[in-house]
């Protein structure tokens, strides 16, 4: 299981904001912590703001802050802002219509179903508890 770079960046950012919802966090601070390009991160934060997950705060000490409900927003909600995780991949590849191709698709769909069920049932609040466990 591998998430796209933007998706991982979005999850890192959202969890930073949700951990302290009242605090404005500068994008540069997140870029530094996760060793990513500020320019790349800006695009991700802009998309999160457009979706109402975070809101930008202008002025001195500005940045972004959390604007969603951490007990309701799931990992899947965030992931789906950046990649299509809920639908079948409609791209056709050579071999798809062979018995082996169809069998492989069945197995891959089983894996995807489990991944979706996992991401859809871990809220940001739950994820923050898991993060805490990894600090110890």
């Amino acid at each position, binding site marked *: 299981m591998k998430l796209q770079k933007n998706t991982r960046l979005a999850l890192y950012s959202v969890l930073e904001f949700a951990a302290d919802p009242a605090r404005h966090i500068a994008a540069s601070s997140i870029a530094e912590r996760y060793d990513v390009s500020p320019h790349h991160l800006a695009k991700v934060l802009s998309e999160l703001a457009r979706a109402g997950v975070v809101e930008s705060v202008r002025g001195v000490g500005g940045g972004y802050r959390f604007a969603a409900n951490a*007990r309701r927003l*799931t990992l899947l909600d965030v992931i789906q802002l950046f990649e299509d995780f809920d639908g079948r991949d409609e791209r056709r590849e050579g071999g798809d219509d062979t018995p082996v191709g169809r069998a492989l698709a069945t197995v891959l769909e089983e894996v995807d179903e489990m991944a979706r069920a996992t991401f859809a049932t871990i*809220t940001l*609040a739950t994820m923050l508890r898991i993060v805490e466990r990894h600090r110890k």
Partner: protein
Amino acid sequence: MRAADLDAVIAIDTRVTGIEKRAYWQGVYKRYGASRSEGRQFLVADAGGVVAGFVIGEVRDWEFGSPPCGWVFAIDVDPDARQAGVGTRLLAAICAGFRAAGVTKVRTMLSRDNRLILSFFRSQGMMAAPFIPLEMDA
């Protein structure tokens, strides 16, 4: 869990699932509510004399090759009493019972479509167990 609580448990289940299963619940009560042995537990949350929720489980030994552990078979909270920590307290109570019975691992299994209850168990710290449920047409 008292015999007098059974109607309230059936009412909560009927409201949540849309199907009344009285005979099933009477059997469950006989096996888990009336029985105080073998690590079986059928607990209800009492909110001022009103049953606000229930949880059922038991200790099972070496099932699926696993050392003894506690299994939670059912947990539900009256929709009007949710978001108040009732489910959390029910799970804590049954876990205390499991610990008293000498086990430290608690497991459950439910439909992967049941996102509400899956999210609840996740919020309580449950992670995927090292088992994969399988099925086939008999």
